[in-house]
């Protein structure tokens, strides 16, 4: 898959997962994996990029004697999800058309 495309999809997936509730790195990897292959090293730049553009915030919570970073989606992040849905509506229409067997199906 084109790497830019994959990055865009992963960003949207991460935001969507966070829209269901604050989460931490490993849990995000588990939640996104069923939809698109993701590793810790691909997730990290995505989390940082989303934080840099203000689509999510980070905070620390103590867990079993160590600090665990939690991520929370922002309003800007929610808007990002909307934008993704709008853009991809067109993509699905194109996909449906190309998938057609005969011309008038």
């Amino acid at each position, binding site marked *: 898959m084109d790497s*830019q495309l994959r990055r865009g999809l992963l960003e949207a997936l991460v935001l969507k997962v966070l829209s269901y509730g604050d989460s*931490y*790195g*490993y*849990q995000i*990897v588990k939640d996104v994996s069923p939809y698109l292959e993701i*590793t*810790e*090293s*691909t997730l*990290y*730049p995505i989390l*940082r*990029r989303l934080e840099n553009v203000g689509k999510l915030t980070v905070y620390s919570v103590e867990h*079993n004697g*160590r*600090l*665990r*970073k939690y991520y929370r989606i922002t309003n800007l992040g929610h808007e990002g999800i909307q934008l993704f849905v709008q853009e991809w509506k067109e993509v699905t229409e194109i996909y449906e058309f190309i998938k057609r067997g005969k011309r008038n199906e």
Partner: protein
Amino acid sequence: MNSLKGENAMNKELFLQQLRVRLQYLPPLEQQRTLSYYEEMIADRMEDGISEQEAVAALGPIENIVKDTYEDLGFTQLLQANMRMNTTNKISDKILIALIIFITAPFWLTFAVLAFSILISIAAVIFSLFIAFVAVIFAFGISAIACLAAFVIFIIHGQPLAALFVFGLMLVVAAITIALAPTIPTVGRGTMKVVKEIFRSAKKPLADRVGGKNEK
């Protein structure tokens, strides 16, 4: 029973140590954050019941982590990282290097300015193409309005043929405007993407250099 062979079975401390060395050219804060992140990932996996070696292995090859980390830096941060790669700790070396940099300034400054201005010019050309695109659509829109005005004037002056002609013209021009205007946001986003790609590929040699294997 651990199914991983000796070479690949790395433990957490060794992994983090290697990662710290490879990431040494990052700004200290970024370094710390990145290391904490991977340490946290390993700990979380181990909590899930995965063994230490498998948790480390699950992070993938250290090369990928290093590459992704450096490639994701901004231009200025990447330049700083490259500069950090060049520094030495001996005072005499530092003085010598400062002297050389100063003396050869006309050469590398010229080159740096040239390289950067080429990059900026390419971005500027692409942007101006986009602005021209928007301006043309705008001009079409204005023309449609002008045709409407002309149409009204011709009607008032009792020149139906001229009015009809101008009306037809207005329809064509308006149609073009209405067809093209909605594409502006998409074209705009596409333009941004192209410019970002150009800067991204310019960063790649810097990222490769600072992320490459080093035995320091």
